[in-house]
């Protein structure tokens, strides 16, 4: 049985009430229209990773995003997410942002290609309206403009 994260999060939040889990109003569904080997892929993660030269993510209440190069040689990355679970990710961001793995799959031909950048933002925030009405459409626009056929979201 998978680990019960919700109970642990509730214990951590006590005596405050547990975090509200708010489903999106309209889950999106797009049919798969071509094989993976012909798809251009992008990564999205809520780990608040950015290139060192980019503005820092504020500690809370922020619905902005950063474009991070999909080139694994751009290695000067920072993680602004203040999480107790971030020890390993700060040692190797690839465990939540598998940029090198995706590029390797593209080089092997399993994935058709990779967008020039990936999209990153902060998780664990409570700006539900801004997330759905501002951030999500902005990310979708970026993905569309970059010619992405596939977006892999890694929650953090």
């Amino acid at each position, binding site marked *: 049985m*998978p*680990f019960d*994260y*919700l109970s*642990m*999060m509730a*214990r*951590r939040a006590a005596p405050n009430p547990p975090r509200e*889990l*708010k*489903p*999106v109003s309209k*889950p*999106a*569904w*797009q049919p*798969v229209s071509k094989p*993976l080997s012909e798809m251009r*892929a992008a990564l999205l993660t809520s780990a608040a990773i950015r290139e060192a030269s980019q503005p820092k993510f504020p500690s809370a209440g922020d619905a902005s995003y950063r474009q991070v190069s999909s080139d694994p040689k751009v290695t000067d990355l920072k993680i602004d997410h203040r*999480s*107790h*679970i*971030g*020890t*390993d*990710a700060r*040692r*190797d961001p*690839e*465990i*939540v942002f*598998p940029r*090198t*793995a*995706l590029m*390797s*799959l593209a080089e092997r031909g*399993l*994935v058709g290609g990779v967008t020039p950048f990936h999209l990153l933002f902060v998780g664990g925030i409570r700006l539900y309206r801004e997330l759905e009405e501002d951030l999500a459409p902005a990310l979708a626009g970026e993905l569309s403009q970059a010619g992405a056929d*596939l977006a*892999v*979201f*890694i929650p*953090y």
Partner: protein
Amino acid sequence: MMVRVPSPRAVFVDYPVGRTFGRPGASEQHERVLADALACLGSFTVTGQIIDLPHQWEPGGSRLWEAALTKDFLG
């Protein structure tokens, strides 16, 4: 959490939270998990479906990592 907040297509990896693709520095593991997740793409039929990947954090399936994770979270 993935059940309560459904996404169009979801793959579950039973690793400690914050280590979705594996251990730091284990690039082959990262690539294997990502490849296995992407290979599920054509198997989804409805929104909200979750496919479990067979990967285990410890080779023998030990769940001792749960105690360490709880300590990380709760101090």
